[in-house]
């Protein structure tokens, strides 16, 4: 197994700043817009984006956690079921502009489940997707992100590993891991 860094501390901060600028470009003062971050790691990315946005807009931005465990389409097809996390949506979704946030976009199945989970809270005006890392050419579903931190082109035998300091107290680092053992 070998791994190579594709985003680290400094570059990650620049990327997050850029994503926030793009969000402000499209959503202006965030009057009708809300951020809905996908559990578990999308929430960490979402929290960071929220704090940058709040600093530059000088106001609170509505923020929710969305857990998609019960909406996944691979339940009973995987080795072990995933453990559920909390869904916290402290606002009304009806007629809002929703920005879904996740760390890595790959097959698109998590986002499909997230759309399903979100609809249980109401009918939003529109929905956009922000992904910190976009793994191109692996999509199983017709889903694309409007805001992309970094595009990565990689093989099926490789995967993207996201280490954020909130989770393991180490440094922020995003890796491209090549798994040589299973081909």
């Amino acid at each position, binding site marked *: 197994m070998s791994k190579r860094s594709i985003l680290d501390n400094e570059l990650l901060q620049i990327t997050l700043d850029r994503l926030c600028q793009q969000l402000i470009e499209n959503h202006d003062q965030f009057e009708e817009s809300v951020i809905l971050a996908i559990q578990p790691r999308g929430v960490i990315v979402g929290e960071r984006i929220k704090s940058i946005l709040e600093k530059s807009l000088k106001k609170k931005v509505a923020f929710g956690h969305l*857990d998609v465990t019960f*909406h996944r389409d691979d339940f*009973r097809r*995987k080795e*072990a079921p995933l453990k559920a996390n909390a869904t916290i949506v402290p606002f009304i979704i009806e007629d809002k502009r929703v920005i879904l946030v996740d760390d890595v976009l790959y097959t698109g199945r998590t986002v499909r489940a997230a759309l399903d989970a979100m609809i*249980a809270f109401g009918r939003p005006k529109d929905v956009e997707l922000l992904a910190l890392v976009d793994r191109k050419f692996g999509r199983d579903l017709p889903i694309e992100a409007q805001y992309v931190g970094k595009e990565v082109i990689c093989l099926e035998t490789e995967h993207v590993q996201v280490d954020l300091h909130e989770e393991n107290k180490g440094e922020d680092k995003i890796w491209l891991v090549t798994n040589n053992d299973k081909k």
Partner: protein
Amino acid sequence: MQSQLSVKHLLGIKELKKEDIQLIFETADQFKLVLNRPIKKVPSLRDITIANVFFENSTRTRLSFELAEKRLSADVVNFSSSSSSVKKGETLLDTVNNILAMKVDMVVLRHSSVGAAHFLARNVNANIINAGDGTHEHPTQALLDAFSIREKLGEVAGKKVCIFGDILHSRVALSNIFALQKLGAEVMVCGPNTLIPKYLGELGVKIEYDLKKALQWCDVANVLRIQLERQTIKYFPSLREYSLYYGINKELLDSLNKEIVIMHPGPINRGVELSSDVADSHHSIILDQVENGVAVRMAVLYLLAGKQGQ
């Protein structure tokens, strides 16, 4: 971090590990959030069919299981023995095998014989959930009772719980004793001598015959119904006398001068084990128990279904 149960069937609390119970609670927490949303439904079990097979009467348990199954998007068929071919002499195993032949994945079973669920689990190919077998176990009731204590008091460990009433005929009592002890609570039982099984002390349970002393001791009082339908001989002179010695009323609670949580698995015989003013007081979490029942049963069904694909 454990993410699946160690068992394939839920036959009793005795077979569960402490970690299993904690996983069920953590999953139930999430389902409770789902149940408080505008759309109270998730698609997890949409490819699963569940049969509710009830050989004994039930209101809460059957409705609670059926709602839990529907909230998980499972297909549900209901069976009750009173309107079935059991009356024509069909055996339990034949009945269930016929239901399974129609491609059913899980069976929720209530039966008046001890060990009925264990017998099915050995003999048929489906996940079995025991919804009460005679005077033996009623695991989902014990899980929802412990879940409700955890919700009300923050945790179960270290709490003092006393079970009052007809311990001898109660499957709820036995399952509760196992669940509470596994979670680290202290357990006492209180009732007339004739309704407390002889060897109960061997489970490490305290035994008290004086109602007031028991109430004085406990943080939580789980009050059971007198199961006249299971009593073949007279265990006490009359319900009136039982109520005088073991009925919990408002004056008695007020005289204790302490915070106490009152629970009851239902159905309540008002005026016998609990007076109406206690059942409806702020001490009572009886309706929270019913609400939590759906979330806990959703967690059990979800986690057992997750074991099925393997």
